[in-house]
């Protein structure tokens, strides 16, 4: 498996995105360069509306950027790349309401696995996110936080090489959130999964990431790309008390705050 030279799992070069709505064009992303190595976890933080989801959609091949290039596993992205999964920000709408939870989780596996194997994978993935005995329910019969976990389970059951997650833990309680963070860290470490996670939560970004990328400005550029130099065996208590953790957290926070201040200046001007 390791014969091919190490390619970057995701390579974004000079990415530009402009939306034209009713004749008014809005420049959202301006020259994004980002390289994610195989097995790396990169967290993307930034203000609401900076273009984090847009960036993710370009990597997922769901959206053709206005300019620049995106490649996944060395191949230029023209449509959804193989071996890539997305956990959408709109997790509720990404579950099919006419399918039971199990069928939702197994939907992407229909092409490749027998029914028995699919169901086994679904049960396993659902158990991993702390959901048991919900297979026969419909998504709309469970809470928002549970729906979000179903969406995560579906992505895990697919066993992708690259996983894109857009605010995947936004709707779960603090305890479940830490559990899910640990689960994702563990799976990424065990399976060599390449992860790109968009989050609002700076602590979460530093805790999960090997790198934290700060997206800022209008149009958005990469304001900072920070290596997270923390031991790989992370722990909610000790890692979050580590001086390095606190230093990084402070740095990201001040970068974002600077952005907020400049927005405030512009608004008051």
């Amino acid at each position, binding site marked *: 498996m390791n014969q091919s030279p190490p390619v970057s799992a995701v390579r974004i070069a000079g990415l530009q995105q402009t939306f034209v709505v009713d004749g008014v064009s809005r420049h959202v992303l301006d020259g994004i360069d980002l390289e994610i190595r195989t097995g790396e976890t990169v967290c993307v933080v930034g203000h609401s509306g900076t273009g984090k989801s847009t960036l993710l959609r370009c990597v*997922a091949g769901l959206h053709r950027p206005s300019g620049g290039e995106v490649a996944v596993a060395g191949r230029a992205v023209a*449509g959804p790349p193989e071996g890539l999964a997305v956990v*959408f920000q709109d997790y509720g709408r*990404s579950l*099919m309401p006419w399918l039971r939870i199990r069928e939702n989780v197994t*939907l*992407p596996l*229909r092409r490749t696995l027998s029914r028995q194997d699919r169901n086994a994978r679904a049960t396993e993935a659902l158990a991993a996110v702390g959901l048991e005995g919900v297979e026969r329910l419909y998504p709309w019969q469970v809470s928002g936080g549970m729906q979000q976990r179903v969406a995560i389970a579906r992505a895990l059951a*697919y066993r992708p090489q690259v996983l894109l997650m857009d605010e995947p833990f936004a709707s779960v309680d603090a305890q479940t959130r830490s559990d899910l963070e640990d689960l994702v860290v563990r799976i990424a470490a065990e399976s060599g999964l390449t992860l790109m996670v968009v989050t609002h939560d700076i602590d979460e970004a530093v805790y999960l990431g090997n790198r934290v990328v700060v997206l800022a400005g209008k149009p958005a550029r990469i304001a900072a790309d920070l290596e997270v130099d923390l031991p790989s065996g992370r722990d909610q208590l000790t890692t979050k008390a580590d001086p390095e953790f606190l230093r990084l957290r402070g740095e990201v926070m001040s970068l974002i705050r600077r952005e907020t201040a400049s927005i405030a200046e512009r608004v008051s001007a």
Partner: protein
Amino acid sequence: MTVSERVVEGRAVMSGASQPAPPAAARPTRRAVPAPVSQVAAVAAILAVWSWLAATDQVSDSALAGSVESFARLAEVLGTSESWAAIGQTLTAWSISLAVALAVAVPLGLLLGRSMLAYRSSRFTIDFLRTIPALGLIPLAALVYGASREAVLIIVIPACIWPLLLQTIYGVRDTDPVAIETARSYGLGRWSILGRVVLPSALPYIATGIRLSAIIAMLVAISVELLVLVPGVGSLIAVAQRNGETVDVYAYTLLAGFLGLAVVLLFSRLERRVIAWHPSVRGHR
């Protein structure tokens, strides 16, 4: 298509006989009186007025038969093979029409609904064609096909294609784009997305379309039979009327009414099943 546009179009469902409607259950269903009670009361009221009109000679006897008399006669004719043959004829024309409409309208609707270009370019044609009144074409069909089943089909099939086609298009266009993107990102192909995401998502709309088409097919089929004297329940009514058999006219009209009612009940039930997951009904079960 905006939500308000759909709601407005849904208002006029039966009047134009081919206007798109949201799934039936999307309409408010809360009632103070249980539905069966109020419905039985309405039927009883109509029967009472009917009996009163007949008993008090408000209308001449040759034009109005009593309700008891008419129902008794209906029971009688249901014992004859003649009326069962007619029911069979009508149901055959009805089911052929519905099957053809399904086979044409659903695939076409999926296609038109998925392609913005196809939808835009066909929208005017569809709107124009569906405004042609089906019943207005009956003399033409009679001229070309005579009193045959073809005359019925040529009128009924187009009449029930429109509601089904439009409902399918609206259902397809109402599919959640996030659901489609999810399927795309997991590598489902074009046809898988059509079959596993778009079609199930549109099914509640299609079920409403089927119900509308089934009713229209019954109404229009009986009308054509009646006007062109094609063998069927419609022609029984026409013949009885020509022979001056007032009670028979009422009995066969009741029969036609019950056929329509059976279709409504059957297809409403089917619709309710298909729609169970839809946001408009989830809570009401």
